């Protein structure tokens, strides 16, 4: 059995070795790097099943007390690994489009880092899954964010990509500032950075609650940027649209998962402070409701599929926040909030990667990323059209797809908490979701294609897409493997709900 930290070390080592190999190799064809990375990540994923979960030990002198390799963190590490593999496959498909947007002498030159930087993002995501200390969590978050700054602006000749990079950099830095300031306040109040110790100190803090609430709000604002919660969502559509498509997929899955994981961890100490609990939940419900409405309603008129997916990702953040806002309800029919969020993120990863995989292939073979490029896709490539139907159905929440269980768990949380306002918002927004997701299906099957050239799909992408479809159906019928992994290890966050 390996210790959990070996996974991060392996990913980082892989990243450094590939970077060195890239700079010393004479070959202009960088695709080999991506293949090596995918292969090795696959092995690391396999190794993750041979690691012994080791929760953090708290006590004087134990060096690893900032790192918890518990079962839940392992699930999130696997999600990060799978996402990165998916993104690298997408990046290979995107090469043709990317090469045109790079100022280089020959095709393929300068694409090397595009395949290697996601590895560092992946390492950051995995570290964040294990972080039980504010400083560690912050360092991991920055590793993720900084590698994203580069990736978003990677297509240097595309104005949209540069614009997206600048927007993401400025707003990202701003939100980082909020988080750091929030952490400072927490440290100032408690003198601790470890989550467990912070929780202990906060629960016994006497005096005015304003300072605690202020710290909470600062963190909420900072993380609100990361998870794209309203009113901190304004960067999302532009950045998603401008970034290279595989990076958009990574942003939408990885960045969101990281943000929510950190959110749950940071929220936990505050939930122990009973005097501010009602206010905290009220603010969360307000943000969740606004995010639900804005994301889903603004997605309806979009013509660019990338923008549509951007707004839909805000909408999904709304469902996740809704589940979190119901955290005070206590145990009951199904699972804790932690497991609900974990499963939702897993399902979201599957369906979003699938949607972006199809989008990448279609946009490389057409002249844009508008929904009308999908017109008549069922004639150009029935396989891709079917894959998109599965992705859209799952995002809309049709049963027997993985996305449905996610919505089901969220609705169960809402009803358990007797949050009737959020429930009615949920019903309305799911209706809106049916409209805008099925618009894509309608375009693919109802309309005639603008271009008739059939789309060829590379074998690796075909395998990946097929696996994603199979996984969406499998976990749509039997979610047990993921749920029991999230549950048996008794996530501390779910425990906090009681």
């Amino acid at each position, binding site marked *: 059995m390996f210790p959990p930290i070996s996974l991060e070390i392996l990913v980082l080592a892989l990243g450094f070795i590939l970077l060195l190999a890239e700079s010393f190799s004479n070959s202009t064809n960088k695709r080999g790097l991506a293949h090596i990375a995918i292969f090795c990540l696959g092995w690391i994923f396999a190794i993750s099943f041979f690691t012994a979960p080791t929760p953090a030990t708290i006590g004087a002198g134990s060096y690893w007390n900032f790192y918890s390799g518990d079962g839940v963190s392992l699930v999130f590490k696997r999600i990060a690994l799978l996402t990165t593999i998916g993104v690298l496959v997408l990046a290979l498909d995107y090469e043709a489009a990317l090469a045109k947007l790079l100022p280089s002498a020959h095709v393929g030159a300068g694409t090397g880092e595009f395949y290697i930087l996601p590895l560092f993002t992946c390492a950051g995501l995995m570290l964040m899954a294990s972080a039980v200390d504010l400083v560690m969590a912050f360092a991991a978050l920055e590793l993720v964010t900084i590698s994203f700054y580069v990736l978003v602006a990677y297509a240097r000749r595309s104005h949209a990509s540069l614009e997206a990079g600048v927007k993401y950099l400025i707003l990202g830095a701003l939100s980082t500032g909020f988080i750091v300031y929030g952490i400072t306040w927490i440290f100032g109040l408690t003198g601790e950075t470890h989550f467990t110790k912070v929780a202990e100190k906060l629960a016994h803090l006497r005096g005015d609650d304003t300072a605690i609430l202020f710290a909470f709000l600062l963190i909420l604002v900072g993380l609100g940027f990361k998870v794209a919660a309203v009113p901190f969502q304004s960067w999302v559509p532009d950045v998603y649209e401008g970034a290279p498509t595989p990076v958009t997929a990574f942003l939408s899955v990885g960045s969101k998962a990281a943000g929510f994981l950190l959110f749950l961890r940071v929220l936990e100490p505050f939930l122990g402070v009973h005097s501010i609990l009602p206010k905290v939940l009220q603010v969360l419900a307000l943000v969740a409701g606004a995010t639900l409405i804005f994301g889903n309603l603004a997605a309806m008129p979009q013509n660019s599929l990338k923008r549509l997916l951007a707004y839909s990702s805000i909408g999904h953040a709304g469902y996740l926040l809704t589940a979190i806002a119901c955290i005070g309800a206590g145990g009951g029919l199904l699972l804790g909030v932690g497991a609900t969020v974990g499963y939702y993120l897993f399902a979201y990863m599957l369906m979003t990667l699938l949607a972006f995989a199809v989008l990448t292939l279609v946009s490389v073979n057409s002249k844009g990323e508008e929904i009308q490029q999908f017109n008549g896709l069922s004639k150009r490539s029935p396989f891709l059209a079917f894959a998109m139907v599965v992705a859209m159905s799952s995002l809309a*929440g049709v049963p027997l797809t993985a996305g449905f269980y996610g919505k089901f768990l969220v609705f169960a949380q809402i009803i358990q908490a007797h949050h009737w306002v959020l429930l009615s918002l949920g019903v309305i927004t799911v209706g809106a979701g*049916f409209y805008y997701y099925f618009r894509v299906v309608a375009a693919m099957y109802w309309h005639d294609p603008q271009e008739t050239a059939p789309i060829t799909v590379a074998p690796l992408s075909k395998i990946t897409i097929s696996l994603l479809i199979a996984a969406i159906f499998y976990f749509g019928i039997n979610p047990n493997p993921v749920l029991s992994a999230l549950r048996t290890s008794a996530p501390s966050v779910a425990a906090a709900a009681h």
Partner: protein
Amino acid sequence: MLTTLLLIPIVTAAALFLGFGNRTWAKGSALLQLALTLALWFRYDQAKAGYQFIFETNPLFPGVDLRYSVGVDGLSLVMLLLTALVTVAAVWFLPQLEKRANLFDGSVLLISAGATGAFLAKDLFFFYAFHELALVPTFLLIGLFGSGERQAAAWKITIYLGVGSIVLLAGLVDLLMALPVSSRTFDLQALQQLGAAHMIPAAAQIRPWFLLTIGFGILISLFPFHSWAAPAYASAPTPVAMLHSGVLKKFGLYGMVRLVLPFLPDAFHQPVWGNYTAQDLLLLALLGNILYVGLVTISQRKLDFMIGYSSVMHMGYIFLGLASLNLAGLSGACLLMFAHGLSVAALFAVSGSLRDREGSLNFDKLGGASKSVPFLGICFAMAAFASIGLPGFANFASETMVFFGGFSPGATSFQKTATILALWGVVISAVYMLRAYKAVFLGQPTASSTKWTDLAGSARFALALLPLTLLLGGVFPRYFLSYLKPTLEAALR
């Protein structure tokens, strides 16, 4: 065995999507489905009653009794028979297509599979899931192969039913939450026993009652949630209209009988507005179906819209039977679900065939068709008479029971008034059905109608299956009721 029944259409559909096979496969699949359903029908042990042919897996959710489990009792068998019969008729009315015929055929089979899965599921989750799965092919088919304002109709039905399903989902979860923690289960059989034990206090029943009734009500096109139905059926390709109005819509009613009646019986008597109880509210809504939609039906000038609205109107009778809360009314309602499914499918089959021949279904453009297409005329007449409630057809037997149920000794005065008003619906349906028959089949033949060719070959058998079963049900209603009775008694206990 039940899983096989479910897999037949799914596997055939998958093969068709992948490009194997042709229309013969779809027909074969439908016949196989009917044969297997009949085998189940006759092998079902009536003496034992309850769920039989059970198959279940291990729980799929940690710590929750949610599993893939199938099983049938008398009520689900009747619904499965309806599904199989309408499916056979529907695949014989698949339109001739130049391209993408496999996509069409496979999607039709998927709709049938969704209905089959919902009726044989013994688990609440799969009961819900299979029904909603049928939404996707319905959306594709109406928008792609429909007629008239097909895309608008496809959007309307999809969004209406999507929202309805979510309300329903909320209701289902709320129902489960109302049960004590230790007895929360998704197993319909276990739930049935819990329902008999009156686990939920009367005051706590009203909220899940509303959520479930509105959720199911949207799916069934209960007034005032009915406006999606007629345009969707009018635009839908013939087999989709047959399957959706005949079978899939019955899912909501089936759910009312399975869940609302056994679990929330006291909610019907709870006052919700002044002295008016929830039952009164439901009666008002169903009178909207029968009288208001009935009058709307009379004013229709096109055959397909008229049949669509008439199908909405008849949902009112089924609800009347449910709202009576006694065995006579409920048996009538369940038999009427079966009978209405067959008659409306036959009507849509005939109207679809006429649309293929004429292109327009305006009453002004049609006339004298019985001279050139006598077989279609006879089938239409039988289905129309059945739908009005003429003695000899299953609809008559069931509507009679519904009215008896509404006038039983325990009925409130409001219920009796509603039943008397509902009786006028029979007159309304006689008016529009007979007028339609006269306008289409009698009178001076139009120029184009003389050139029509009648239905030929095996399609005749497929269509005739529906009215003949209706006759069978009209002559021997007790035979069908004997299947329904144990389930319904358990539901009312």
